[in-house]
């Protein structure tokens, strides 16, 4: 089930972006502030109307909202949880696109995938940043979507939690899901993504494997910094 965008246009944000995303891959969308990363992700999730987005050939805006919600799970940039629910209740909200369908197994699987078994009755306000990020991701997984779209899921996470979360996202891709994440951490994209799309000024500046897309020259042109990669593949760091 591919997810493709054709000439997405949003005045001041996206300028004719076309791309096709494949399941089983972890795709990172990177770029400087204001490049259009979140807008692109929102268009791919069907939440912004910037043009034609197709899910396995079917136009997303013609799909029933429930069908779209079943296929695409979305984690926003600043996830809010208005009431102090438990982790288990939060994760169960991911089953909302499936009214009437039994969801116990999916909820349990999502809790297990994010290592939240011991936290299931803990209230969200009592979670650490890393635990909260995992709980929010488990909410998306409980809906069993074919596509998982996450906007800066590593924000506010320390190194260890960020690496652990990227590992879990990568595992989801290995299990067949399409995973698309907006990242600011270029090293995380380099070490964990299968594919990197670099955005600049609302357009695609580079698209390919991490090593192909994030060359020092391109980083210099897009981010206006002199940078070079250090270390071994899979454990690279960016020196600026």
């Amino acid at each position, binding site marked *: 089930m591919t997810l493709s965008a054709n000439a997405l246009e949003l005045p001041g944000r996206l300028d004719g972006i076309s791309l096709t995303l494949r399941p089983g891959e972890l795709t990172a969308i990177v770029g400087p502030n204001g490049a259009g990363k979140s807008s692109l992700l929102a268009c791919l999730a069907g939440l912004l109307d910037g043009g034609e987005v197709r899910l396995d050939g079917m136009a997303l805006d013609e799909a029933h909202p429930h069908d779209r919600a079943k296929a695409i799970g979305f984690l*926003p940039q600043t996830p809010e949880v208005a009431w*102090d629910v438990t982790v288990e209740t939060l994760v169960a909200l991911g089953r*909302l696109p499936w009214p009437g369908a039994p969801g116990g197994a999916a909820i349990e699987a999502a809790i297990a995938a994010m290592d939240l078994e011991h936290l299931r009755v803990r209230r969200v306000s009592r979670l650490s940043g890393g635990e909260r990020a995992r709980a929010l991701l488990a909410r998306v997984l409980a809906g069993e979507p074919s596509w998982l779209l996450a906007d800066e899921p590593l924000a506010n996470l320390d190194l260890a939690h960020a690496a652990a979360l990227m590992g879990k996202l990568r595992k989801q891709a290995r299990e067949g899901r399409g995973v698309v994440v907006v990242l600011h951490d270029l090293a995380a994209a380099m070490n964990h993504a299968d594919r990197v799309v670099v955005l600049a000024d609302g357009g695609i500046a580079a698209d390919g494997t991490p090593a192909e897309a994030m060359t020092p020259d391109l980083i210099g042109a897009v981010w206006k910094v002199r940078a070079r990669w250090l270390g071994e593949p899979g454990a690279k760091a960016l020196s600026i």
Partner: protein
Amino acid sequence: MTRLNMTLVLLIVLAVPLSLLAGQVWINPFDLAVPNARSILFELRLPRAVLALAVGSGLGAAGAAMQGYLRNPLADPGLFGIAPCAALGAVLSLWTGYAVSAWILPLFALAGAAIGMLLLSLIAGRNGGVATFTLAGMMLASLAGALMSLAISLAPSPFALSEIVTWLMGAVADRSWNEAWIAVPGALLGIIALRLAGRGLDALLLGNAVARSLGINLSRLQALLVIGVGLTVGSGVAVAGIIGFVGLVVPHLVRPLTDRRPSSLIVPSALAGALLLLIADCLCRVVPLAGSELRLGIALSLIGAPFFLALLLRMRRGTSADGGWA
């Protein structure tokens, strides 16, 4: 049925007979020798109890839904402006003198609520924005309040002025089965509409964008809320006047006993609202007050205002307003 709902139903089942017996004239259930005991029970106190249950349940459910929709523990059914519009309709019926007929005042109030619902939908538009919707409701509430003040200041007679002011205080005293026939269907249908909005309210717990990504149609959710709040609050105001704080206080009391999802809160809030209003009305009847009895709206405001203040103080200290949120 959850354990909480069963407990609340049981408490209501216990409270209703007590409410029938309590009052300035106490009735011994084993000795109906009190003059007119049958009339007092079936013509005065039973419709009054039914009204208290219907109005309280509607306000409780509407409060829970409003707090869920606005994701704000300080939200109240009055914020949508439907209650003030219904009250304005009732005030106009008293002002013009049409209210001498038993059905006219509630009909005016229901018409006011319907116009309020229509205006709210038209002003807020179809985009489903919570902020626009709330501001439209506040504008309506402000306008209706100003028009009520104008009606009071231009009251055609001291009698009309007294009638308006007394009615606005809110009460279920001196009502008949006529009012019950308006309040009960209004509350039931309204609670059903609010319950149907439950899934959408649960999704909104995670914000507008996530709710949409979960397949929730925010315009439909808004329409269900307007209908639900309109029916519950509109019919409540039509038969009992303005009764504040139930919609604010009851969801707070109930929330810690649930899993805190808005959908889990609507039915228990309806039951707890019914119970609270029934007990408060009983207290109004038995508290000695020279020449009259305490008005229900005043009694609930006297209880609700300190509660609201305590809530604000807890929030200022950074403690949870929803019973645990830091």
